[in-house]
Every structure is written in structure tokens, then in C-alpha cells.
């Protein structure tokens, strides 16, 4: 630790001054031995000092130390003393050899040291890059990749990068990916765009737009250009440039991966919505055409030729039934679009649930005629807070479905209870129930059980679900053990404060 502290301290001093001082100090220590015949020993001491200096000083100071020590040795220790003159030929040879050895020694040591330093740096960088790769591959989603990239760049380079990504259509997007509190002005954004389009770095310390405040680096992958990264650099990157670019390449790859992922998802989504659109279009046109064809055909027959009274009545009934069907279809489409557009406002008020059941069974009077309808209300059923119109539609759809699927003369039932702050309504029938593998799909929009005989768009139950959810309630469906489906609706509802009314009782 101490050596390190000393080295740290020395590293702050001018290295040339340091090497001069150390050589001078050594010479001073050896000065008492000047004039003796041991000046060869002193040459070794000086060589040793130069070697030591070479282990922590750069090539310049070492060169200075070597030269200085050669001159000092000559001046103070080689006879005749205190002159640069050398008397004996062997001493001249000695001096030249000393000079050469000192310089070679110094240069070789610093070079080894530098290579060792480079190797160590390379090792650290490899490790950092490896860590970056693994961090990036672990992160999923654009935001997380960006977060990892920013924090790793910050940790390893010490600057705060600023990412601008493209919008998915090969154009830089100004807002979404901009990090908080940072913004580029139009000119800077134009440069970012130039960098993005040309895949070339620009700005400060580069070859284009040198006068800019920021440096701009393109992010590019094999198939997608994710965007541009902007830095505010104090100094040029220098030898770190290659390392930085490798770093960026890894980040680009990760971002590209995310972009490709998003693209694949978009394609899947488009496929899905295309399929949905086709289903919708086919079934709507089919569902509309059938009743329209019935009405047209019947009316045409009635107008163009004479029929007996029975035929006439049959045709009128057909027109009437087809109109009801059209009306239901339009009602469902309107409700669905109200739900889709989020324009459903629930107008809650206190209602007698009995009124609701009466209204719906009245509306479905004809449809319910062939069935044995069982309405079971809890004995002391309190008033409940619901939107009457929406709940009417919910029960209508459930009961209408039951009428369509259950065989005549079986029972169709509605049970209502108030359990722990919840209105629980169950609608059941004694039909075939739902096939097990599709029972979870029945609330999906435009879903129809395969091979279903009855018409319809597959909207009824999704409207039920939407309206119940608008009441903050839930709806579920099961097959009963004894056969037939049972729908269970649960809606949170308070019970009214009616204490104040007691005054009236006489």
C-alpha cells in the first residue's frame, strides 16, 4: 500500500524533474567515493537507478536519466575528476558502453512495462465487453436494453450517452426515446439524422461538423439501424476509439434484436387483425344478408302475386322475424362499438331486481314460450345499484342464447341472491352446454362455437362481459353437472339506507 501511495505521490511530480532529482541524489550519495578506484562500482549503482526509474517512468524521463547518469559518472567519478575529459582509452570505452546500456536498459524496461499495461487493459476490456454482452442478452425490451447500455457506458467511459432511436419506420424519432431532461435543438437533430442516414460519425473530434458541441455516433446492425448515440466529449477518445466502437457495436446488436422482435410482433399483430377483419366482414355480411334476403323475398312475393290468406300471413311472419333479427344484430353492433370506443357510462341507481327480470322476460316473451322459466329470488332481496339499461341487455343476451341452444320444454332459470355485498345472478339452461375445449373462449369477440346451428355474430357474450366489467363485476361460465350451461354474474353493490323511511309506518 505504501509503495503505491509513494508512486502515486511521485506520479504527480513532473517526471523529468523527478528523474533529474533521483539521479542527482544518487550521485551526491556516491560523491564521497569519488577519487577512489571504485568508480566501476558506482557505474553499476547508476545503472541500477536508471533501471528502477524505467519501471515507473515514461520513455522520455528514462532517456534523460540515462544521459544524465552517464554525464554525472563521467564528470564526478571517471578520472580526471570534475572534467568531462577521459584520460584512459579503456575508460572511454567503459563510458560509451555505460551510456548504451543505460539507454537500452531504460527503453527495454519501459517497453516491457507498456506491453504489460496494454495486455492488462486488453484483458479488462475483454472482461468488460463480455460482461456487457451478457448483460445485454439478459435484458429484454427496448427500455431495459437502453438502461443497461447507458449504465455500462457510464461505468466504463464516464460519459452520459444520449440515445435517439428510430421510430420503426427507418426515421429518427424525436420524442419517445429521448431521455428525460435532454433535448436536441433542430440543428443538432438534423446532424443526428445525417449520421443516421450516412452511418458515419460526426460532430466534435470527428471528420464532419467539427464545430459542434456534441459527438454523434451511428448505431448500426446487420439489418436494422437502431439509431444514433450522442456524447458530449471533453477530449478525443484517441486509442480508446476502437474499444468504444466495439462497445457500440454490441449495444447496436442488442437494440437491433429488440427492433426485429418488435417488427415480428407487429407482423403477427397485422396478421391477426387482418384475420379478424375478414371474419368480421364475412360474418356481418352473411348475418345482414340473410334477414334482408328474407324480407326482400317475402315482400316481393306479397306485392307481385296473389296469395291465399294463410300464405300471406306466413310471409308477413317471415318479414317480422327477419326484422327482429336485423334489429338484434344492429343493437349488438351498436353496443359493441359503444364498448370499443369506451363511451359506456354506467348510470347506477337503486333498482328492484324483480323489475329487471320482468322487463327482460316480457321482451323475450315469444322466445321463452316453449320453455319452463324458473325465476328464483332470494326472499328478502334488497334493492341493488345497477345500470338498468346495461343489465337489461346483459340478461337479454344470456336468456336469448339459452333459448337458442336449449331444447324446447326444458327449464331455463334465473337465480338472484345478495351475498356479502355482491349481487349474484345466475342464468342456466338444460341444453348441451359448451364443448370443454372452447368454454374459455366464449366471451371473445366474434367467437362462435364451431358447428353452431344458430346465427349471430358472436358478439352477445362479449357484450355481456363488457357491460358487467363496466359495473366492476365479473362473469363466468361453467357446464352444470346435470347438463347445460350456467353463467354466473357478480356485481358489487351496496344496500340502500332506508332507516329514514321508518317514520312513515303508521
Amino acid at each position, binding site marked *: 500500500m505504501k509503495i503505491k501511495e509513494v508512486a502515486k505521490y511521485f506520479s504527480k511530480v513532473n517526471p523529468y524533474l523527478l528523474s533529474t532529482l533521483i539521479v542527482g541524489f544518487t550521485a551526491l550519495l556516491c560523491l564521497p567515493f569519488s577519487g577512489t578506484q571504485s568508480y566501476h562500482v558506482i557505474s553499476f549503482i547508476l545503472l541500477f537507478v536508471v533501471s528502477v526509474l524505467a519501471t515507473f517512468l515514461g520513455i522520455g524521463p528514462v532517456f534523460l536519466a540515462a544521459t544524465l547518469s552517464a554525464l554525472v559518472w563521467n564528470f564526478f567519478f571517471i578520472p580526471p575528476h570534475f572534467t568531462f575529459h577521459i584520460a584512459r582509452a579503456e575508460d572511454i570505452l567503459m563510458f560509451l558502453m555505460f551510456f548504451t546500456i543505460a539507454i537500452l536498459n531504460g527503453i527495454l524496461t519501459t517497453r516491457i512495462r507498456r506491453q504489460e499495461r496494454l495486455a492488462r487493459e486488453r484483458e479488462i476490456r475483454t472482461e468488460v465487453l463480455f460482461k456487457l454482452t451478457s448483460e445485454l442478452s439478459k435484458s429484454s425490451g427496448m427500455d431495459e436494453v437502453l438502461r443497461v447500455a447507458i449504465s455500462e457506458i457510464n461505468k466504463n467511459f464516464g460519459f452520459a450517452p444520449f440515445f435517439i432511436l428510430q421510430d420503426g419506420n427507418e426515421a429518427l424519432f424525436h420524442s419517445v426515446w429521448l431521455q428525460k431532461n435532454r433535448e436536441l435543438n433542430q440543428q443538432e437533430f438534423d446532424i443526428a439524422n445525417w449520421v443516421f442516414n450516412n452511418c458515419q460519425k460526426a460532430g466534435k473530434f470527428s471528420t464532419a461538423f467539427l464545430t459542434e458541441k456534441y459527438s454523434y455516433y451511428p448505431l448500426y446492425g446487420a439489418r436494422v439501424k437502431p439509431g444514433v448515440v450522442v456524447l458530449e466529449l471533453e477530449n478525443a477518445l484517441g486509442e480508446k476509439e476502437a474499444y468504444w466502437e466495439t462497445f457500440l457495436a454490441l449495444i447496436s446488436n442488442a437494440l437491433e434484436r429488440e427492433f426485429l422482435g418488435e417488427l415480428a410482433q407487429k407482423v403477427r399483430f397485422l396478421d391477426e387483425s387482418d384475420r379478424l377483419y375478414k371474419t368480421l366482414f364475412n360474418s356481418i355480411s352473411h348475418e345482414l344478408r340473410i334477414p334482408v334476403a328474407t324480407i326482400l323475398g317475402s315482400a316481393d312475393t306479397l306485392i307481385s302475386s296473389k296469395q291465399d290468406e294463410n300464405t300471406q300471413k306466413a310471409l308477413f311472419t317471415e318479414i317480422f322475424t327477419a326484422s327482429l333479427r336485423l334489429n338484434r344484430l344492429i343493437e349488438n353492433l351498436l353496443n359493441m362499438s359503444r364498448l370499443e370506443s369506451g363511451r359506456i357510462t354506467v*348510470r347506477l341507481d337503486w333498482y*328492484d331486481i*324483480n323489475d329487471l327480470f320482468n322487463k327482460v322476460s316480457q321482451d323475450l316473451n315469444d322466445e321463452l314460450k316453449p320453455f319452463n322459466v324458473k*325465476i328464483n*329470488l332470494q326472499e328478502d332481496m334488497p*334493492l341493488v345499484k345497477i345500470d*338498468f339499461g346495461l343489465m337489461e341487455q346483459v340478461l337479454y343476451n344470456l336468456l336469448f342464447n339459452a333459448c337458442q341452444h336449449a331444447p324446447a320444454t326444458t327449464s331455463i332459470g334465473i337465480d338472484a341472491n345478495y351475498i356479502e355485498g355482491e349481487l349474484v345472478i345466475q342464468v342456466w339452461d338444460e341444453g348441451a352446454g359448451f364443448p370443454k375445449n372452447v368454454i374459455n373462449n366464449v366471451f371473445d369477440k366474434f367467437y362462435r362455437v364451431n358447428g353452431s346451428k344458430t346465427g349471430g355474430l358472436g358478439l352477445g357474450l362479449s357484450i355481456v362481459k363488457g357491460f358487467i366489467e363496466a359495473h366492476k363485476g365479473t362473469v363466468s361460465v361453467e357446464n352444470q353437472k346435470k347438463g347445460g350451461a350456467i353463467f354466473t354474474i357478480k356485481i358489487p353493490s351496496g344496500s340502500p339506507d332506508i332507516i329514514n*323511511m321508518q317514520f312513515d309506518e*303508521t
Partner: protein
Amino acid sequence: MNENNTILVIDDELQIRRLLEITLSASGYKIIHSSNGKDGLIDAASHHPSLIILDLGLPDIDGQEVLSKLKEWYDKPVIVLSVRDSEEDIIKALDNGANDYLTKPFRSGELLARIRAALRYKPVKENEPVLEFETLIIDLPNRTVKKDGELLKLTSTEFSLLALLAKNQGRVLTHQYILKEVWGYSYTEQTQYLRVFVAQLRKKIENNPSKPVLLVTESGIGYRFGK
């Protein structure tokens, strides 16, 4: 001229006007029609129809405004036609003085029944203190009600509610109107009171309280007494 037979239809849809003309003429009514609010007001003033069928969605003036203007001088029944899912509009129209409402699409039979009921409707006069509905007899001055000849025990609020509804038989009364008339202005939001009293009243006056025929619910709007 049999005044009791003229009906003015104010609706901008030609097909609806034609349908109403055919249906109503077949039932013996005389039809006048206007395709907008302005003409409607003029026709009402010049023909004095015995009933007006008014569409709320008119091209020139809002149907509600036509209704308010009509009600300044026209004292005969108005039946409002509106598209579905507009409870608020219906309530507003009833509060503005409409006697009844129908939502499009409607059944002709239903419309004819409403017209008959509305034409029968006459405000109860002072000299008509006893109202009879099949087996139910309501004696207004003595505040007593008899069913099948037996005196019913009604609380004073129950009686006020029943009297209000019975005096307006055949007419739809909104929740707010009933609450205001029976309980007072500060109670117009307390629908739960109304529901509880309606349920109590039904138990006393209806033959089958769970399938009421006298005190009928108009979903989301209010109540109507009798057919």
C-alpha cells in the same frame, strides 16, 4: 270535423311518416305530417290536432325545444319518438310535458295502444273524487283504497304515491317527478325510497306483486299506472 281523430306527425324521416300514415289511417285516424320543427309548430297551431307524435331528432330545431314551445299553449297529449339508449332525452321530454314515449324501432301495435291510452287521458277534475281500476277503488277525498271491496291499510306516503300515479293513469311519470311530488324537492335523488314504497304498494294492490299490471315499471325512466 271529428277533432278527436286528427294526429300530427312531426318526423324528418319520410319512410317513418309514410309508415305512420298507413298504420294510423288504417285505424281510422286522420294524419297530418310535417318534416321539421318549424312546420310542425305551424301545423299544430293551424290544425289543432288531438295528438302529436314528435321525433326528438329534427333537422332544424331540437325536438325538446319544439316540445317546450308546443306545451306553452297546446294542452293535448304529445307522444315522443326517440332512438334507443337515450334515457336522459326521454326523461327530459317527459319533464317537458310529453305524455308518453316510444323508442325506434317500435311495433305498430304498441304505438296504437299508446295513442289510445293518451287520447283517453284526461286530467282528473275536482268533481271526480273516486277513481276505479277494475277491482281497485281509490277515494281521493277520504284517502281510502278498497280492493275487492276490502279496505286496504295504506300508510300516508303509500296513499300519496298511489293517488299521484292513479290521477295520471296511462301516463309515464319520471322518478324525479314522483319523488318531488310525494316526498318533496330535496328527495329527487333518493330513488331507493321510491323503489321500496313501490314494492310495498304492489304487495297491497297487485294480484301478483312480482308480475305487476297496475303499477308498471318503465325501465330507467319511471312508472306508469294502468294501461
